[in-house]
């Protein structure tokens, strides 16, 4: 009898763990937001779009000074020039994005209905180029980052609006893959993304405080003072993976695209505020 009861208990506990791990995207997001609201009760939801500057007052003051003369302005100008340039066939980037003059950043990443793969803004830009007979831009290169920066700039204020349709199994699979990546420990230091940006958010790592994951994708690409240049979200992913001493995946690899999909869905409702400036 005791054995039966113990067996039932273990079964119920196992089912509960699996149910939690495989809760739907909406439940995941609700729990994710609630966690940070509980952890930082004085920070309004919209503030998470400002990353660490929502948490660290000293760093926020420095950032506001930096924003007086934004170091990414030249990149926006470069992106605007590229955006407005015509392809040899007379078409423009805007023709690939439904003629959008207003921003579309808030809708990316999304799952491409044809391929079933996650399409980020960067891969969408390259797909547009290929469609018009142009060579793909190098991911992480100046031009694609500049285009992304301009597209983020004209999308400022638009709330992130990522869909993970339950009618599209490939979307759900990509979301789950990104979620698994996010919570999986990796590298010689045995850290997951969540170890730093959920469990330790707001804590110091050496002289810097760790940002919360909520709002991470809203402000990329960013100008990083550390490198003196613009950095895409995937370059930042790559840096984090390297920091825990794991071998990074390629920029725009499936692993990183799925991670972006999960992470951006978690930030649904926050306003786009890229490009940004970070340490």
């Amino acid at each position, binding site marked *: 009898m005791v054995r039966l009861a113990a067996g039932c208990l273990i079964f119920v506990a196992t089912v509960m*763990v*699996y149910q*939690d*791990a*495989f*809760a739907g995207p909406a439940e*995941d997001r609700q*729990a*994710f937001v609630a*966690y940070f609201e509980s952890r930082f009760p004085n920070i309004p939801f919209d503030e998470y779009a400002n990353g660490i500057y929502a948490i660290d007052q000293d760093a926020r003051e420095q950032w506001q000074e930096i924003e007086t003369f934004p170091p990414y302005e030249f990149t926006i100008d470069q992106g605007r020039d590229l955006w407005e340039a015509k392809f040899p066939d007379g078409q423009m980037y805007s023709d690939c994005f439904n003629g959008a003059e207003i921003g579309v950043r808030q809708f990316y990443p999304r799952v491409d209905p044809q391929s079933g793969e996650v399409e980020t803004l960067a891969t969408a830009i390259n797909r547009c180029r290929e469609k018009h007979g142009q060579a793909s831009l190098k991911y992480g290169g100046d031009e694609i980052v500049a285009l992304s920066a301009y597209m983020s700039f004209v999308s400022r204020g638009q709330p992130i609006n990522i869909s993970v349709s339950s009618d599209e199994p490939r979307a759900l699979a990509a979301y789950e893959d990104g*979620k*698994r990546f996010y*919570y*999986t*420990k*990796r*590298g*010689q230091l*045995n850290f*997951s993304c*969540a*170890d730093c940006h*959920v469990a330790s958010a707001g804590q110091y790592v050496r002289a810097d405080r760790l940002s919360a994951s909520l709002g991470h994708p809203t402000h990329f690409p960013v100008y990083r003072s550390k490198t003196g240049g613009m950095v895409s979200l995937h370059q930042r992913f790559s840096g984090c993976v*390297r920091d825990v*001493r*794991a*071998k990074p*995946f390629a920029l725009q690899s499936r*692993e990183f695209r799925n991670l972006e999909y999960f992470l951006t869905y978690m930030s649904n409702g926050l306003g786009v505020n890229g490009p940004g400036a970070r340490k």
Partner: protein
Amino acid sequence: MDRVRVNNDIVMSLKTLSIITLACVFIATKSVRAEDVGGSSCSMPGVGTQIKDIKGRVLTHEELFKQLYDEAECLRRAAAAAGAEWLETETLLLRSLEEADEQRWDSALALAEKARFQAGQALRQAEHEVEAWKHRVVK
């Protein structure tokens, strides 16, 4: 033929080789594509206090290095296929090859052994994380 004076650490760690080899093959067949891993080529003969080949001949430095290197590379590929490769493993292997080219065997063996250890640990980590990540999901 020269007798091999094998570093004690290497000999001891080779005793665990069969376990890690099994883990490598297990993960290769369960979690990653076998063609990425090289099938059962991870197996290495000669586990014991002396490293001998199948005929009882004591291995030379070069032979021992080749076996250790192949084992490490096999494990590294399995770790990479599982998406769990560590940052320095490949570099360690490249450096071990350079040392071997110069016939600096102590250094070459030590580097290959370090790479083998790292790749084995990366695989163990990946195997553990297959389930462990689920417990970290924010609820």
